[in-house]
Structure formats: C-alpha cells, structure tokens
C-alpha cells in the first residue's frame, strides 16, 4: 500500500476529481492529516444534504420498483437524464408497479377463493335448480363421518317447521355431503335454531360477494370467475411491459445515485482551502500510475499526486487487501471469518489453503466419499459468488480425501477391500490406530512449529523480544520431541541427555524473552501439538462408521433392507464427515496455528469505486 495525497482546484472537486477517482476504483480515501489555518473539512452544505436525501429516496424507490418487476428488459445503461427527472420517474414507476402488484395479488387471491368453492358449485346448483324461488335457501355441508347427522337434522327441522321444508342432498368428493334446504320465509328463524341444535353450519359466504347466502353468491362468483383469468393476464402483461420499458433506466438511475452518494460521503474526508482541495488515501502500489493517469486526464496539469513517505504514516492505519494467487483466493473466505490481519503482518491464506484440505482429507480419507464431495464441489464451483468459493474449497478437500483414501485403501470404508481387494498404500486406519495417531501428532508438530516460526518472523522488526521468545519456544518444542523419540527408542538413546541439557539451558532465555509466562507458553504449545490427535480420532470414527454401515447388509434378514440401511448409514456418515472435519480443521487453524502469529486489527480496503450490485461499499 502507498499513501497518496491529491491536490487540485476546489471548483473541480465534485465535477471532475472525485468522479475520476471513483472511476479508477483504487483509492481508499481517509481523513486528511494536514493541519493548517486555511484548511477546512469538506462540509456537507445544505444543498448537498438535500441532494443526499433526494438520492436516498431515488435509490429506495428504484429498489422497491425493481423488486416488483420481473427480470425483463436490458442491462443498465448510462443514466442520461437529470436527477430531478429521475426522482420523479422512479417514484411514479414504483407507484404504478406497486398498484399493479396489489391488483394482481388481489385477483389471484380471489381466484384461489373461487377455486376453493368450485367443488360445491355444481352440487349446490343442481340441487337448487327447481326449488321455490320465494322461500329461504340454505347451503349446508354435512360430514359423512357422522352417519346419524342427516337423520338428526331432519328430525330437528320436522320439530321446528313440520312438513314445510325441502332438504336435498348430494355426495361431494371426499368425506362430505352437500345439502340444500328450502323453507318458507316465515319459518327461517325457527330453521336457523334447528340447524344450531343439530350442530350443522351453513357454508360461509365470502364477504366480497356479500349476498345473504351461498345460493345467492354462487351465480355472482361464477360470473366473476369467468372474467378473472383474462384480467390477471392483462395485469401481468402490463407489469411486464412496464419492466421492459423502465427496468434498464431504473438500473442506470440507481447506479448513478449510488455513485453520487459515494462521492458525497468521500467529500467529508476532503480538506479544502478557498481555492484548493487536499484528499488523502491509500492505493495499492501497482495501481498508483493508473490513478495518476486518470486524474491527469480529468484535470490536466491542475492536479498533483504526491506519495507520502513511509515515515509519515504508521502500519496501523493502512487498510488491508489480500493478494494471493488464484488457486488460494477462495480460502480468503475462511480467513475472513476472523478479524482481518493487521497491515504488514503475515497473511495466513496460503498456509490455510494447503493445511486445511490436508487435515480434512486425513479425517474423511475415503475414495467414495471423496468422489462424491468432488462432484458436489464441481456443481458449486460452476456457480458464481460465494458458492464458487465454497466449491473450490470443497474441491480441494475432496481431492485430498481421494489421495488419503488411496493411501488408506478405503472405498466406502472396507467395501473396496471386500469387492475389489483394495489394499492401503500407507496403512489401514481401521487397524493401525497408533501409526495414525503418530502421523496426526507429527503433522501437528510441523503445523505448530510453522506457526511459531511465522510468529518469530512477523515480529522480528517491531517486537524483537517476542520474536526471540517464539523462536526459543519452537526450539524447545523440537528438543522435547527429540527427547521423547530418544526415550521411546526411535532415535538413538544418546540424543536424550543432550536434548534435556539444551532444554534446561533454554529455560532462562525463554523467561528473559517472554517473561514468567514463557514456560506456560511452552506447555501451551505442547498441548496444542497433542490437540492434533483429533485428526486421528475423527478419522477413525469416520472409517468405523463406514465399516458398520457395510456390515448391515448381512446383519438383517433381507439383503435389500440391509442395503437400504447401509446406504442410509453411509449418507449419515458422509454428512457427519463433512461437518466434523470442517469444524475441527478450522479450529486447528484458528486456535492452534493462528494463535502463534496471527495479529488481527486490520482495516478493510474499501476503495471509492463505481457502484455495482455486488458492491459492499456503503453509501
């Protein structure tokens, strides 16, 4: 990163300078540190404040309208109209789109309501076609699950109105019966009491068809239903036409509004004299020439770009931008789970990109599971955005699972061995538990030592004693390992005494470098190494689950049921094999590895740049 200071004529700041800076998209503006009686902070004048409010409204209106529109219409072009016209247009389009959406919603709900009643229509219409028109009609639905209901109803009606009623029934699809009851008007109150007594309810009439009964509402609903599809189609067509005509314009207007808002926000960081402006910012060293060329194009010789000397700024204020080869870039997402590293410290991405999939592969370690993971990863990788990054990470994990699957001779557990005589190239995790444990702890030793060395290197300039302390701990961890290996007979016994003497000699150095907590740091580092035993534990659990799944085929009576159970068990094991290794490989990095060197507290590099839909720039 380079800190630059841009000086130019004040009257061209908003018209040329800031747009040019924004167009290059490389300058991360910061508050200017120069103090001078003539220099004042670029204040937001009432006119600019009004403009900001207006732009915010334009963005809100455009967002709301675009959320309603179907994705019809071309891509965003350049907004050529003025902003006041744009604001009016955005508001009117949003209102029209919202009205159409409301109407479409209401029509769809109405259609759903009529659909709900449609099964009753034909039954009730047939039943009531030749009933007396001058009496009161009731449409009822009776449950067939209550066989005595019809008789109870007849009896209640008979008691209420004698022979003066007509009840017709017709079975409906399902467990219900439609019934139409016709009585003379004067008998209506007594009939309603009888219906309540028999616990029979009349079919409710939708409020929007406010007739007295369903019998009156049905013809209205049928007439309405006939016209609904055409009306829904017309509203939908109108919404599509509106989108076709105005979506590109709204997209362009929204982008223009976001860009202007970005410039106004940057204005508060600019210092000004009555005639000139000063803008400080960070730019990646490789992009400095691009910025200078863009400013020269916009302002000619009236602008000066000065690179501030390293002594005038401190590392703590510089923003951080990851710069990794393409292969490692997806793993930056995993580093971003942590607070950003401070500027000038070690970027752990390349190490994480190597060790994370390796640990994952050691834990999953199966040709079958690895192949499935690779296939899933490929599908994700073909998509855009975060899914692409996850796909790339999963692909690396799948590849390592395949490699270690070959080393351990596993294809869905011991299925490969049973069916194809697959043999391990290294050792079988099912049997060689101690070698697997030694491998896991040895990897942990390498990983922790690497962390300590990185910690020593990253603090060698700023914190010499800390660097020495990290180095001494690394050496002592190696000495402890040598002593244990000598004691267990793997190394010649003669190594034991010298390593113990060296350990004792290193203790005072450690205390001087790290203080009284130094020995505790050493013990913590040794504990961290042992923590890598989890790789062996999870790996063994994974292979044992797969073996148990395979044994299910012969364990239950039917081979088909056994195979189904085995498949289910393998599926569960695969899912567990994704979550467990991911969480524990991350933990080994975040706690055991990063703890040795990672220095958080970096500010994110957020250049002033043209807005786009993926932009995280807050405006």
């Amino acid at each position, binding site marked *: 990163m380079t800190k630059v200071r841009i000086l130019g004529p004040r009257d061209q700041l908003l018209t040329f300078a800031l747009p040019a800076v924004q167009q290059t998209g490389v300058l991360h503006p910061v508050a200017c540190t120069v103090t001078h009686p003539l220099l004042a902070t670029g204040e937001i004048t009432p006119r600019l404040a009004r403009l900001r409010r207006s732009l915010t409204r334009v963005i809100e209106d455009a967002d709301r309208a675009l959320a309603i529109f179907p994705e019809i219409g071309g891509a965003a072009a350049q907004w050529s109209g003025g902003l006041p016209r744009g604001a009016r247009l955005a508001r009117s389009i949003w209102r029209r789109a919202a009205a159409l959406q409301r109407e479409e919603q209401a029509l769809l709900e109405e259609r759903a309501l009529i659909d709900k009643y449609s099964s009753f229509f034909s039954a009730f219409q047939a039943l009531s076609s030749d009933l007396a028109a001058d009496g009161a009609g009731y449409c009822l639905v009776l449950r067939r699950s209550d066989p005595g209901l019809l008789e109870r109803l007849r009896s209640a009606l008979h008691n209420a109105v004698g022979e003066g009623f007509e009840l017709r029934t017709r079975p409906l699809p399902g467990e219900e019966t439609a019934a139409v009851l016709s009585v003379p008007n004067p008998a209506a109150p007594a009939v309603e009491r009888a219906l309540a007594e028999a616990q029979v309810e009349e079919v409710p009439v939708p409020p929007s068809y406010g007739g007295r009964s369903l019998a009156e509402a049905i013809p209205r609903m049928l007439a309405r239903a006939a016209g609904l599809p055409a009306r829904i189609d017309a509203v939908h067509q109108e919404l599509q036409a509106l989108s076709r005509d105005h979506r590109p314009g709204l997209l362009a207007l929204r982008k223009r509004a976001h860009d202007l808002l970005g410039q106004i926000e940057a204005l508060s960081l600019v210092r000004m004299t009555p005639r000139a402006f000063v803008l400080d910012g960070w730019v990646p060293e490789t992009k400095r020439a691009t910025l200078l060329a863009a400013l020269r194009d916009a302002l000619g010789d009236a602008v000066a770009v000065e690179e501030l000397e390293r002594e005038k700024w401190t590392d703590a204020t510089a923003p951080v931008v990851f710069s990794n080869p393409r292969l490692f870039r997806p793993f930056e997402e995993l580093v971003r789970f942590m607070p950003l590293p401070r500027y000038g410290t070690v970027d752990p991405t390349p190490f994480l990109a190597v060790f994370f999939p390796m640990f994952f592969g050691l834990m999953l370690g199966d040709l079958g599971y690895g192949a499935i993971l690779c296939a899933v990863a490929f599908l994700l990788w073909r998509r855009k955005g975060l899914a692409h990054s996850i796909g790339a990470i999963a692909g690396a994990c799948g590849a390592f699972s395949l490699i270690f699957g070959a080393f351990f001779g596993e294809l869905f557990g011991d299925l490969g061995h049973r069916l194809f005589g697959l043999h391990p190239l290294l050792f079988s995790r099912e049997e060689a538990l101690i070698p697997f444990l030694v491998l896991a702890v040895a990897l942990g030793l390498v990983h922790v030592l690497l962390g300590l060395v990185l910690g020593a290197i990253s603090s060698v300039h700023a914190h010499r004693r800390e660097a020495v302390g990290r180095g001494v701990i690394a050496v002592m961890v190696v000495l402890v390992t040598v002593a244990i290996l000598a004691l267990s007979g793997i190394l010649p016994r003669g190594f034991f005494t010298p390593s113990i003497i060296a350990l004792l000699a290193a203790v005072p150095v450690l205390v001087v470098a790290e203080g009284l907590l130094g020995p505790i740091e050493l013990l913590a580092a040794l504990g961290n190494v042992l923590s890598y*035993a989890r790789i062996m*534990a999870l790996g063994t659990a994974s292979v044992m689950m797969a073996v148990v799944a395979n044994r299910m085929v012969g364990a239950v009576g039917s081979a088909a049921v056994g195979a189904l159970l085995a498949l289910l068990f393998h599926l569960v094991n695969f899912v567990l094999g994704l979550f467990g290794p991911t*969480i*524990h490989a991350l933990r080994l990095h*975040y706690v055991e590895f990063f703890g040795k060197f990672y220095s958080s507290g970096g500010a994110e590099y957020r250049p002033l740049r043209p807005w786009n839909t993926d932009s995280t720039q807050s405006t």
Partner: protein
Amino acid sequence: MQYVWISLAAALAIGLPALCTAWAQSRIGPAVAASLAEKPQLGAVAVVLLAIPETMVILGFVVALMIVMRPGG
C-alpha cells in the same frame, strides 16, 4: 475379569468426557446462537467455542482406544 475392568475403564474414558462435552455444548449452543443473531461476524468464534469442548470427548476416545489396545487389552 481383567477384560471386564479394561472394558469398563475404556467406557469411562470416553463416556465421562462425552457427558461433560454434551453439558458444555448445551450451555454454549444457545449463547452462541444468540450472539450470532446480533453479530453474524462472530462466526469464527462460534466455531471455536463449539469445537473446544469436543476436545474432551475426542481425547477421551483416543485414551479409550489406547486402553483397549494396550498389551493384554
């Protein structure tokens, strides 16, 4: 008889840490979920907090295996 004791020791070596891990995670889980609802950027801390108690049962598993596989086990 020795076989019984070895089996019991292995069962205790993994069983007790498993209970402790379950208890710890039952306390951590809701707290982490509540924290993540307010600050989603604490995702890494959540992973670490949930994985820390699992260390107990994982090391218990390793110890249990070593008990079972010791000479005479």
